[in-house]
């Protein structure tokens, strides 16, 4: 007999010790009965650990039908009414995401740029204020020579009043404490300060073809024009709905849009203002469920799934995140060896004809040979079929290769597909066929 508990563990888990369906879906077991009686529904937030961290928007999520789960120790909404509706709203109009659980770190001081650059896989010392870069954070690992601690966005703010550089790091919620602990061990005695600003601030993402329009309604014309002119991976500051905000043209959905960082006390007024301004345009609040399906369609890696401590960034396709030219960082020697002598499995997309989803951990087969493992999988609301990302042997990694994925007890046919599955068009928000 197949156990529902086993299937629930396989299905759709965020591996970062966080959204695990086994936590979210309650099972009752009577002492007189050996069978689990599955109760299909998410646990009541009242029963959830009172130790969970809450963003300033937690009350809003709960009062608007948010189904709350434990995500990396935060009480977060996985969905409001429908993951598919939230996903499609983001592709067609706009989605509003509370991403305040992510770690926001501030690095300052005369030696800040050089110090931080020595610990990231990208250069930061020479970047200008307003530039954002995607980077990995690595540490030395005795056995393998390198451990990838996280992927992150690093940006340079306007210099402090005394002319010293100010940099910011946005890290995954699940890795915040680990990254802070690591960085603290590397701080010099003077010249650099590191502050965890996560609880002082909030972060709100507005993503979709009309996201920028909506946010610009809440700014004065001059700042609205600045936001519209922001290039990808660029940031500025603006007053949004009367609140000071850092505005970056970044996101985790594959759509145009911005991520706003505001003071914690400003979170609710800014969220309310964006929500109201976007209502007539079709903006929906979106939970972590839609966040996952959107990033999967966009082929973006998730730490704990595509990216892990022992990952080869080149094999995952993150070449752009690693700059080895004339510089070093923890593990750079190992990364150079991996770049020069590629080996091991590589990341590919898998497209299915059916709507049955592969999930992390499902094995991938080429005939009788096991050739890989799924790292993320879900139904794709845009493509109306299931998709997945997986690590597979290089000889079966060519687009068009026919593979099978073992989903529970059944082999499901899949085809290797190039990433991303979805790419937004420059002008019209059309969906890929």
């Amino acid at each position, binding site marked *: 007999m197949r156990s529902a508990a086993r299937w*629930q563990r396989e*299905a759709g888990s965020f591996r970062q010790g966080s959204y695990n369906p086994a936590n979210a879906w309650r099972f009752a077991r009577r002492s007189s009965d050996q069978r689990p009686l599955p*109760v299909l*529904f998410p646990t009541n937030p009242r*029963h959830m650990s009172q130790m969970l961290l809450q963003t300033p928007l937690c009350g809003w999520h709960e009062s608007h039908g948010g189904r709350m789960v434990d995500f990396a120790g935060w009480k977060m909404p996985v969905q409001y009414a429908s*993951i598919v509706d939230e996903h499609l709203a983001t592709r067609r109009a706009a989605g509003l995401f509370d991403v305040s659980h992510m770690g926001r770190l501030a690095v300052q001081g005369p030696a800040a740029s050089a110090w931080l650059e020595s610990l990231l896989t990208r250069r930061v010392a020479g970047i200008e204020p307003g530039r954002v870069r995607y980077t990995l954070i690595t540490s030395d690992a005795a056995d393998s020579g390198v451990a990838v601690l996280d992927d992150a966005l690093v940006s340079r703010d306007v210099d402090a009043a005394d002319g010293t550089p100010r940099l910011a790091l946005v890290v995954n919620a699940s890795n915040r404490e680990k990254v802070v602990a690591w960085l603290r061990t590397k701080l010099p005695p003077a010249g650099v300060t590191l502050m965890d600003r996560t609880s002082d601030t909030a972060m709100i993402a507005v993503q979709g073809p009309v996201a920028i329009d909506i946010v610009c309604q809440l700014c004065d014309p001059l700042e609205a024009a600045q936001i519209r002119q922001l290039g990808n991976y660029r940031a500025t500051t603006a007053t949004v709905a009367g609140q000071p905000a850092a505005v970056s043209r970044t996101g985790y959905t594959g759509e145009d849009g911005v991520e706003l960082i505001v003071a914690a006390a400003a979170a609710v007024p800014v969220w309310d203002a964006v929500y109201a301004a976007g209502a007539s345009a079709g903006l929906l609040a979106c939970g972590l469920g839609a966040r996952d399906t959107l990033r999967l369609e966009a082929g973006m890696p998730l730490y704990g799934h595509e990216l892990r401590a022992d990952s080869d960034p080149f094999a995952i396709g993150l070449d752009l995140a690693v700059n080895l030219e004339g510089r070093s960082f923890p593990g750079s020697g190992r990364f150079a060896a991996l770049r020069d002598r590629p080996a091991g499995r590589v990341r590919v997309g898998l497209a299915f004809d059916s709507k049955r989803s592969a999930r992390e951990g499902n094995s991938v087969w080429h005939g009788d040979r096991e050739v890989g493992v799924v790292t993320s999988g879900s139904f794709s609301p845009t493509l109306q079929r299931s998709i997945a990302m997986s690590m597979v042997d290089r000889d079966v990694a060519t687009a068009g290769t026919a593979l099978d994925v073992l989903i529970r007890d059944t082999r499901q046919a899949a085809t290797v597909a190039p990433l991303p599955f979805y790419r937004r068009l420059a002008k019209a928000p059309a969906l890929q066929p």
Partner: protein
Amino acid sequence: MAAEMRFAKSHEWVRPEPSGLATVGVSAYAVAALTDLVFMQLPAVGRRVKAGESFGEIESVKAVSDLYSPVSGEIVEVNAALPNALETLGKDPYNAGWIIRIRPDNPTELDTLLDQAAYDSLVKSQPH
């Protein structure tokens, strides 16, 4: 023998038909909680199931759930159109949204299941 609809604690419903068969589906409460249904796996006609045994699965965007047979018997019909029209489960879970029909081994087995009132109490007591 129960003449009206009965419910399993796992939220499947079963209704005895005049023909002697029992029709099985999932309750409106179950459907509303699942949301975003994308896939359903139906069993083969002719398969035998025991009460409490999984006869298929239903998948939403976020998770997969087993479907458990409320009674023991032989599956004699499946609603083959349903997997391609999962919205029917939301619109009409107790009629057009039927999932399988079983020839029960033991019709009195239905009496051990929850009646409407008991199931309604169960639903009210669910944490939500």
